């Protein structure tokens, strides 16, 4: 973005990034379809993925949100594709490619750590199964590059500006907020972390305040097990069952000053809308087809270790957002990453129906 601005002074970076998001979203959809075909070795998965992707056309609204989510999803989907192809072919260039792409995804948004951990787990199992150290080496390279690239980006800005950047909002503060009420629903963003924005607040102070608040909240939770269970139930369901996945609330056009802001407020002021009904139906179908897809994998005796990759990412994400800050928009990348599993489910159901007819 900085290079673009230097080449074209006066460029509207906000709009440019939204266009880049559109290109990356389409690229991620293509990568997921190719990933499905690579993992499950079934050409029908490609079409099933494309068909399922078309059902989530409102997801293109996500592209108006200038944030790290779509770039992270794009790099993660390409990294997964390279990882799957590396496991199938053992070509070293693909091993290096998935490590570099995961580092780029981590730099775009550190939530890519979920995918990084999933790939590392798959690499460990792969190394054990094939008695080779090479998969472990590429996983270690991915972790090292991820940490180094993010540090290098921060370092070059600090060096050029002469200003030492603070560490920002830490994981502990986000965990503390994720355990609180007071946001859009249980455990959702509630502005707790904004008290740490002033530069006078040191990392040490932030850590101590967040830790004290977390301990107090955990003690409160321990005293009221029923309330705690209700809290986590609401936190989980509110994130994963919100049919629009935040795509109408967030972004340049939808924010309070944006052109869609008023329209979004009017839209949600109504009790029930056709769009929410359609998106809700797709969401339920995605989960149901994914169950069929994983059952299909379980029954497949020739399945490879790659089958674990996408379910691991999905449940890593579910666990992460069950503990840390929640928002329905965070469910979106995981829903996209579940598409190949759902496509596999559609193919297995088709096989079952054909088998019955035959």
């Amino acid at each position: 973005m900085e290079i673009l601005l230097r080449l074209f002074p006066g460029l509207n970076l906000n709009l440019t990034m939204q266009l880049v998001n559109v290109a990356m979203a389409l690229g991620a959809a293509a990568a997921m379809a190719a990933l499905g075909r690579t993992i499950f070795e079934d050409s029908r998965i490609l079409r099933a993925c494309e068909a399922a992707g078309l059902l989530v056309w409102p997801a293109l609204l996500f592209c108006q949100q200038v944030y790290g989510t779509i770039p992270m999803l794009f790099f993660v989907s390409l990294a997964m594709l390279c990882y799957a192809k590396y496991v199938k072919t053992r070509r070293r260039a693909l091993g290096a490619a998935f490590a570099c792409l995961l580092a780029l995804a981590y730099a775009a948004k550190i939530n890519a750590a979920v995918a990084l951990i999933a790939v590392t787990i798959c690499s460990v199992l792969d190394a054990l199964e094939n008695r080779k150290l090479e998969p472990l080496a590429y996983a270690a390279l991915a972790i090292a590059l991820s940490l180094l690239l993010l540090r290098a980006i921060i370092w070059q800005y600090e060096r050029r500006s002469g200003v030492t950047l603070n560490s920002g909002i830490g994981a502990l503060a986000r965990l503390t907020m994720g355990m609180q009420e007071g946001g859009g629903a249980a455990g959702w963003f509630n502005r707790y972390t904004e008290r740490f924005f002033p530069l006078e607040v040191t990392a040490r102070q932030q850590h101590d305040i967040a830790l004290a608040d977390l301990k107090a909240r955990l003690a409160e939770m321990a005293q009221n097990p029923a309330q705690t269970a209700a809290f986590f139930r609401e936190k989980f369901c509110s994130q994963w069952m919100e049919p629009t996945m935040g795509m109408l609330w967030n972004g340049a056009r939808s924010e309070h000053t944006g052109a869609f802001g008023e329209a979004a407020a009017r839209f949600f002021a109504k009790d029930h809308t056709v769009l929410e009904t359609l998106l809700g139906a797709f969401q339920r179908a995605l989960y149901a087809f994914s169950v069929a897809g994983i059952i299909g994998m379980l029954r497949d005796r020739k399945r490879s270790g790659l089958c674990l990759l996408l379910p691991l990412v999905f449940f890593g994400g579910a666990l992460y957002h069950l503990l840390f800050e929640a928002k329905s928009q965070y469910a979106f990348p995981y829903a996209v990453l579940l598409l190949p599993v759902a496509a596999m489910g559609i193919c297995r159901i088709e096989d079952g129906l054909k088998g019955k007819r035959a």
Partner: protein
Amino acid sequence: MRVVRMLHRAALAAFVLLLAALTLCALALTAQNGVGDNRMLQVVTLARHRF
């Protein structure tokens, strides 16, 4: 390796159970968007489905 195969199978079985639970919840419940005081904060409430 047999241990790795068993791990795969156990993990996939756990994923089936978890995703099936999620599907059942999604069939029974939905999270409805609402308009709160502050439009910067998305507000949702859990509700039973009206098919």
